[in-house]
């Protein structure tokens, strides 16, 4: 594969860009792979990438029913942060965040990781205490965060209304090296790198069944025929329960729509990512100028990638209260994804009741930021049977009562 660089672009500019090759191959499926990953979202692709890069496992297929990156990876609000409260979460999200720092170089593909800073507003006494607690926890977890005062909030984000009157901003948890990235490019960059290693990304190929022998997986049925494998990773987010059922087990997961919207593009006016959990809305400005806005999930199961309209109304009213200028903008487009929410709102990276079969799901409303770390840890789990990054995220926790509950820090988890 041709290396990307400014020189490559300049050279190609002189010959009508005729030298650019495919970003990833479009191969025919083989009969058998050492590892099959179901789901070519960010997590599936990153898993495949680190299987190859860290463990030399390259006879891998990533099977995708639609177009790669078209699931939640392609429709999220791209907030990246690692200021989580609980140790296991902080570990995997910080691993991810630190990998994001060098991802463009590692993949030779600009994923536009933009550490512009993420702030989570404290608008009640309770939130102040929650975020201060997180700041303390982070200081021991190797995660750089700080609790900042409202004057500093205003300085970092001048368009914000910090005076209330309803919910004056009392301070914020600030992670300066949090930010965002170009979501599609993350999927494309990983896909390109996987394809380079000879892995197969099989798009428009739906897994419809899972075959097993003596309690161990042997392969998958797909819309393009049967494909065998030694090990299987299920990384299908909103469809986790559907695929798990093919393998004969049930998950502590509910699939619900989560929505986002963008405004029309305006000149830069906001350099940071802001999450306001009391009023429930969050916003950042993309490199193109739209305000990217998200809010809450639907309360009932659905697989529609749409969601109910009133959530958008709630989100927008919250944002107008927080950023009065939003009132005079227009909503350009809104859309939804299907997020996989677990019983304790934390992800599952685990062995399963089926032999040689692993599952990575439950990232719910907040897994984009985790993609590199999750891929790293899950690849290790699949290759070696265990990983310190994933150890606490096993399915067993729901049976024994060992939850990883992040909601305690007054937070939503985007």
């Amino acid at each position, binding site marked *: 594969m041709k290396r990307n660089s400014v020189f490559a672009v300049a050279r190609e500019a002189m010959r009508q860009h005729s030298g650019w090759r495919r970003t990833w191959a479009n191969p025919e499926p083989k009969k058998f792979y050492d590892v099959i990953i179901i789901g070519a979202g960010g997590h599936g692709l990153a898993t495949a990438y680190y299987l190859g890069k860290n463990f030399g496992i390259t006879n891998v297929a990533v099977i995708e029913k639609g177009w790669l990156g078209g699931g939640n990876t392609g429709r999220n609000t791209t907030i990246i942060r690692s200021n989580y409260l609980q140790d296991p979460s902080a570990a995997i999200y910080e691993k991810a965040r630190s990998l994001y720092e060098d991802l463009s170089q590692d993949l030779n593909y600009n994923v536009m990781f933009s550490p512009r800073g993420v702030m989570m507003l404290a608008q009640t006494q309770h939130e102040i205490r929650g975020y201060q607690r997180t700041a303390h926890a982070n200081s021991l977890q190797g995660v750089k965060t700080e609790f900042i005062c409202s004057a500093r909030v205003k300085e970092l984000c001048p368009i914000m209304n910090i005076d209330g009157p309803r919910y004056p901003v009392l301070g914020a948890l600030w992670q300066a090296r949090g930010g965002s990235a170009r979501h599609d490019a993350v999927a494309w960059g990983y896909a390109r790198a996987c394809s380079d290693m000879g892995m197969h990304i099989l798009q428009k190929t739906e897994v419809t069944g899972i075959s097993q022998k003596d309690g161990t997986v042997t392969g998958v049925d797909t819309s393009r025929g049967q494909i065998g494998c030694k090990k299987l990773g299920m990384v299908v987010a909103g*469809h986790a*329960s*559907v695929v798990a*059922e093919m393998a004969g087990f*049930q*998950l*502590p*997961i*509910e*699939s619900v729509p989560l929505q986002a919207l963008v405004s029309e593009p305006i000149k830069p006016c906001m350099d940071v990512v802001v999450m306001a959990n009391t009023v429930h809305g969050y916003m950042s400005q993309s490199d193109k100028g739209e305000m990217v806005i998200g809010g809450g999930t*639907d*309360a*009932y*199961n*659905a*697989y*529609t990638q749409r969601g*109910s*309209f*009133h959530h958008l109304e709630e989100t927008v009213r919250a944002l107008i209260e927080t950023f009065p200028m939003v009132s005079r903008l227009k909503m350009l487009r809104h859309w939804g994804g299907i997020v996989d929410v677990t*019983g304790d709102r934390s992800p599952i990276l685990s062995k399963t009741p089926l032999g040689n079969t692993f599952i990575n799901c439950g990232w719910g409303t907040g897994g984009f930021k985790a993609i590199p770390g999750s891929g790293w840890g899950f690849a290790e789990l699949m290759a070696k049977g265990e990983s310190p990054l994933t150890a606490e995220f096993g399915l067993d926790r*729901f*049976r*024994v009562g060992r939850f990883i509950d992040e909601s305690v820090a007054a937070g939503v988890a985007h």
Partner: protein
Amino acid sequence: MLILNCPYCGRDKDETELTAGGEAHLKRFGPGSSDQDFEGYLFGRANPKGLHFERWRCAAGCGKWFHAARCTATLEIFGTYKAQTLEPPQVIKDAITAKRPGWSWRNFS
């Protein structure tokens, strides 16, 4: 934006007047039950892509809990019924069969 008919007050209720309550017909397991049963009760969820039975409360309304048979993929409603039952009533089952012959959900079919 769902609209469901509340079987108690008889009104068509907008989704924003209702509270969703998750999967219906879960059996409660208390002290003495196995870890597995208890885990299933608290966390194991059918979460199907298709026909589902779920609980709703007529929150900004008569306040009553009721059940709905709904498709999670098309959002079609097959019927709503009162919550004081361990199993969907036959009329609901028939209504589903008319549209989705051969259906099954957990132990019901």
